[in-house]
């Protein structure tokens, strides 16, 4: 009985300890909630912050449920704009852009050469679900190319963020997947990239905002400024992201 009591008390003490630790807010270091596609780029840009990566819509739900984020970097503008409309975060600004590609395993078991091969029966296609930015971009591209029905019938799994799509393809379990071109670069040698036509690409703009409940808004603003700065943009570009402002097309590239 005394032993039971002792272990009970020990448990209680442990619990109390955890609770205390959970309450203690760290003095420095921002908590940045960022889209999965930024997993490699942001920590390289600023290694001193704490990052939580996930599907932008998952992070949105967490922020709405009161998760302690200071900065939110989403893979689209829609989600941060919706948060701004709800008064949950500051007015979002575009901080980078991206494009979509198809990835296939290096061994390419389904023999996929172009997006049109995805309509072949039996192809195991992995995409992100429509709530995730990359999932909705995928649907947009297929719609733009008039391939929605023909391709979507081959979907075998819907993931909650882009990196899960990437790993299922890199592992060779899925025959193909839609990811950002920046994700494809993170597993060189494991996947082959198939480009998608520029005319079918949706506008992939990443939005960043400061979360209203942040207790460290000044530092959050400094972080946002860093991301938008020349150095920050150069860092993102070194990971394959596109400059936040679309460069004006030079006249000679405009044919027809």
């Amino acid at each position, binding site marked *: 009985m005394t032993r039971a*009591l002792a272990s*009970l*008390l020990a*448990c*209680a003490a442990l*619990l109390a300890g955890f609770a205390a630790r959970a309450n203690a807010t760290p003095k420095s270091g921002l908590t940045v909630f960022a889209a999965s596609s930024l997993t490699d780029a942001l920590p390289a840009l600023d290694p001193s912050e704490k990052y939580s990566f996930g*599907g932008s*819509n*998952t992070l*949105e*739900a967490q922020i709405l449920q009161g998760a302690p984020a200071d900065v939110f970097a989403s893979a689209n503008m829609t989600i941060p704009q919706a948060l701004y409309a709800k008064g949950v975060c500051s007015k979002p600004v575009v901080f980078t852009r991206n494009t979509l590609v198809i990835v296939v395993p290096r061994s390419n*078991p389904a023999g996929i050469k172009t997006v049109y091969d995805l309509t072949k029966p039996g192809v*195991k296609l*992995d995409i992100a*679900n429509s*709530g995730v930015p990359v999932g909705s971009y995928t649907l947009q591209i297929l719609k733009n190319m008039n391939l929605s029905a023909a391709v979507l019938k081959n*979907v*075998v*799994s*819907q*993931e*909650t963020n882009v990196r899960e799509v990437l790993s*299922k393809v890199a*592992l*060779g*379990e*899925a025959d193909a997947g839609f990811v950002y071109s920046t994700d494809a670069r993170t597993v060189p040698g494991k996947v082959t990239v198939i480009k998608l036509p520029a005319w079918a690409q949706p506008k992939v703009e990443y939005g960043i905002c400061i979360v209203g409940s942040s207790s460290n808004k000044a530092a959050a603003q400094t972080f946002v400024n860093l991301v938008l700065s020349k150095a920050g943009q150069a860092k993102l570009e070194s990971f394959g992201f596109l400059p936040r402002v679309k460069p004006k097309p030079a006249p000679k590239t405009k044919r027809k």
Partner: protein
Amino acid sequence: MGRRAFGASVAVATAVALCFLLLPVVALFAHTSPANLLDQLSNPVVKDAFVVSLKTSLVAQLLIVLFGTPTAYLLATERFRGRSLAITLVELPLVLPPAVAGIGLLAAFGRMGLLGSTLDAFGIQLPFTQTAVTIAVAYVASPLYIRQAIAAFEATDPNLAAASRTLGAGPARTFFRVVLPLARGGLAAGLALSFARGLGEFGATIMFAGSLQKVTQTLPLAIYAEFDVNFDATLAMGCVLVLISVILLIALRTGLTWQRSRSTASTSLFGLSRST
């Protein structure tokens, strides 16, 4: 410590523990109205996930009973070299993180896995199929059944089996007519625990089987996928799983009081606590 202080501290600790354990469950039901809950039950995502969960769980439990019962019987009745190692191996999936189980299943049965090319030769591809969900569930849930079954078989009186043999019954007849009826309470308890664990399976499934509505999306997977899309639906599915667990536990408790000792039941409950 005075007698009164002792009693008070026990009571306080118990109250804290009970509140802590009950609060999330109560909150789940308090967060939504019964009307909304019923409304969500007709949501196709919820319905499809329920069907997938039920189907895969039933098949998995059938396989677990079919293969687990003989395994447990052998481990309980025979004494051989490596027996304790075998029991440890049987219990391994119980303590393995489900995500690790998922990677392991991919490495074994995936297309690029150990058995991938062999299976491929037979035209079998497991990942992203309902079979993959069943395998994942069977893998993580079977130890709960087998553990409990070993305990149940060990608890049967060997003299009864011996008497049956001296009266001329063969080993098979003795097993089915004497040992199995004696152990049935423990086996049922093991099955209930393994069913509950299987129903909650998440990590191994999402890694090995993926997530697609109507095909591989079980209730826990649907909860994860719907979390940021339709919170009401996740609450409804959460409530469904809680109700199933409560029913299983009550069935287990009432079954145990007339069938089995408390000590074996409490050790196996450890496994159930990991499932959620």
